[in-house]
């Protein structure tokens, strides 16, 4: 089955894949997802701790913050494997996105505390910055005689109920600042809605939530690339997870159609089914090739070529995973339409990840606008 093909001289990638496979033996992805969904929870804390123990949460964080100091290639291989195994805890947001912001924040005690907690799994650090249309939320930090307070609303917050700390992107006068807000702070409220893949997304409201000086992790975020870097890294992570999910859904469908007999033959022997499976395999191959291209551009041609490549990779992997899993459902027949069959969980997961941080249509438009910009 298609996978991200990278040279692996020291065996790091093989090791990462093996460690996910071993992990999936302990924590079955589909079973865990159903359990979390049944409980209405947004994060499985046991799994999260185990992921921390595996060293995955701080994979890309620099070593001076306690991380492994690895790069996006390692992250992509890891996330692809997690996607295959349907391990759906929100690593992309809670580790890659939050981690990139922390790595780029100003050195200080709070930053060190959060990084350490993030890496060890003891702190769930959830980023807060979007509206439901994917744009920037308006959360404003205002200073008066009583001190600085936050007000405003953000959406699409993952693991909000489980979060220990919110990493809030706020406006303060003309600049954008990054603020750490402990869960349970005064004036902070959270309301959750279920996601299609059995977790939740929350609206987080700040109503005069007090902020101490040491909670401000970074300033001047309009003028630098930190946020763009975080979005880019997260998109590539999501692309890899989508590629893994798509590839696994294809594999499951190939297996199913080889076994399922109708009219005296396995349905995989019917030409119409075969061609459909080949088309699914093709887009899976293209996803992996697009991700490899993005990783190479990031290494060789940072800037515009890399930005284009990441947009293309997320768009392709999202389109492919959604397309593959839809067809997979169909090829599983009535069985595919049941909740008991794991294939539906892959489809729902693909729908969520595909819509996260830009769906393919939006990303393609960004690509063209960027490419055609003088």
């Amino acid at each position, binding site marked *: 089955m298609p996978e991200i093909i990278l040279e692996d001289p020291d065996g790091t990638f093989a090791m990462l894949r093996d460690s996910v496979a071993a992990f999936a033996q302990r924590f079955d992805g589909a079973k865990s997802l159903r359990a979390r969904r049944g409980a209405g929870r947004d994060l499985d804390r046991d799994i999260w701790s185990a992921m921390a123990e595996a060293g995955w949460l701080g994979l890309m964080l620099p070593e001076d913050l306690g991380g492994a100091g690895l790069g996006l290639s390692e992250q992509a291989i890891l996330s692809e494997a997690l996607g295959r195994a349907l391990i759906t805890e929100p690593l992309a947001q809670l580790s890659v996105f939050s981690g990139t912001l922390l790595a780029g924040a100003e050195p200080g005690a709070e930053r060190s505390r959060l990084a350490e907690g993030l890496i060890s799994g003891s702190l769930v650090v959830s980023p807060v910055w979007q509206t439901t249309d994917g744009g920037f939320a308006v959360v404003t930090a205002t200073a008066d005689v009583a001190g600085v307070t936050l007000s405003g609303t953000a959406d699409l917050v993952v693991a909000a109920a489980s979060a220990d700390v919110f990493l809030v992107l706020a406006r303060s006068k003309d600049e954008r600042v990054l603020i750490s807000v402990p869960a349970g702070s005064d004036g902070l409220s959270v309301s959750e809605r279920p996601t299609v893949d059995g977790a939740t997304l929350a609206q987080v409201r700040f109503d005069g939530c007090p902020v101490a000086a040491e909670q401000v992790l970074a300033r001047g975020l309009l003028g630098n690339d930190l946020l763009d870097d975080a979005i880019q890294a997260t998109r590539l992570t999501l692309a890899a997870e989508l590629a893994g999910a798509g590839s696994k859904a294809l594999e499951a469908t190939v297996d199913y159609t080889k076994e399922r007999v109708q009219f005296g033959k396995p349905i995989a022997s019917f030409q119409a089914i075969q061609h459909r499976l080949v088309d699914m395999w093709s887009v899976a191959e293209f996803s992996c090739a697009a991700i490899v291209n993005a990783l190479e551009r990031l290494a060789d041609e940072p800037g515009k070529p890399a930005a284009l490549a990441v947009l293309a990779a997320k768009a392709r992997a999202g389109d492919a995973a959604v397309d593959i899993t*839809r067809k997979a459902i169909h090829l599983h027949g009535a069985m595919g339409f049941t*909740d008991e069959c794991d294939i539906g969980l892959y489809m729902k997961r693909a729908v969520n990840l595909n819509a*996260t941080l830009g769906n393919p249509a939006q990303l393609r438009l960004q690509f063209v606008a960027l490419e055609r910009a003088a």
Partner: protein
Amino acid sequence: MAEQQDWNSLSDTEFRKIFRSWVDENCPMRLRNMRKQRPVFDELADWYHALADKGWLSPVWPQEYGGMGLNAAKHIIYVEEWARLGCPRIPDHGIGLVGPLLIEFGTEAQKAHYLPRILSGEDVWCQGYSEPGAGSDLASLRTAAVRDGDSFIVNGQKIWTTLAHCANWILLLTRTSRDEKVKQKGITVLLVDLTSPGVTVRPIENLRQEADFCEVFFENVRVPAENLVGEVDKGWNLAKAVLGHERIFLGAPSRPEVALSRLEQLAEARGAFADPAFVARYARLRLDLYDLGSAFERFAKQLRDDGTLGADVSVLKIFCSELYQKITEETLDIAGEEARFLDDLPTGNGEVDAMNLYLDSRALAIFGGSNEIQRTILAKAVLGLPS
């Protein structure tokens, strides 16, 4: 009880008006445009009884059996208005399947016993056709019925039995002899009481996590011989026959119509009609739906004129199911990040059940014969292509 009238003698317009106005007045608003495709009997009982009292529960049964006795043309109007008013689908296996089967092939005793109990809601039926190894290839079913004195002993398993957990009777296709050459031979139709010892019903949740179908297990279930319909070993054609002109409704535009109205609602709320790229995609879907209406009318007219339909009618079901999917996919696309939510999307003017419809739209292309099977049938039956 029921109002008797020769509905077929009315003009289409008259009939449509009379039917529509009574239904609109009497179908409770809480049942209109339900999120569930198939509500269970208990949710609908009052509306069911109201229809039965009016004599309008069974559109095609002859009036002597308590139906409306509608011809195909009037039946289409019945279904169209039903959809237009957003009325819920009622548990219809008794009305649509068991009733016509017994009226055509049942004994007088069977008709006298079962038909009134369908109308009264006392018996709720389900349909035991598919098996784990016999889905698209229905003729290879294996649930066995063996004659034992004045009974049959049934052993086996059915699956995808819609709403079996809310039914008390099942129309069961069983195998009574094995002839591997012609698999359709040796199939027998039995009426089976689901409360019989040895019957186990296990609901299966669908992608929307609703239990609308079940597995039904039969372990040495004793079925009285008088529950046989037609003759032993000759049930296949009988089971096929009652499908009749109802096949056209699998391709009726109502599902994509509902989905498109939801897409429009969301698009209005999110400002998508100001985006020419959306409008171009919307236009394609809108025209597909419009043209499905024209194609539906082409077959409806044939049905009105000839009273029968060819295999080619399944083109409607293929087009309809694929359009339904395209519309629900577009709805998720314009939902952007909100496509991640399972619950309904607020619009400021009612909610849009984008994910509910998206998941539901997966079903129609699979059930009732997958679109692949339908295409293969069309290839042979309509284009005469060789095997």
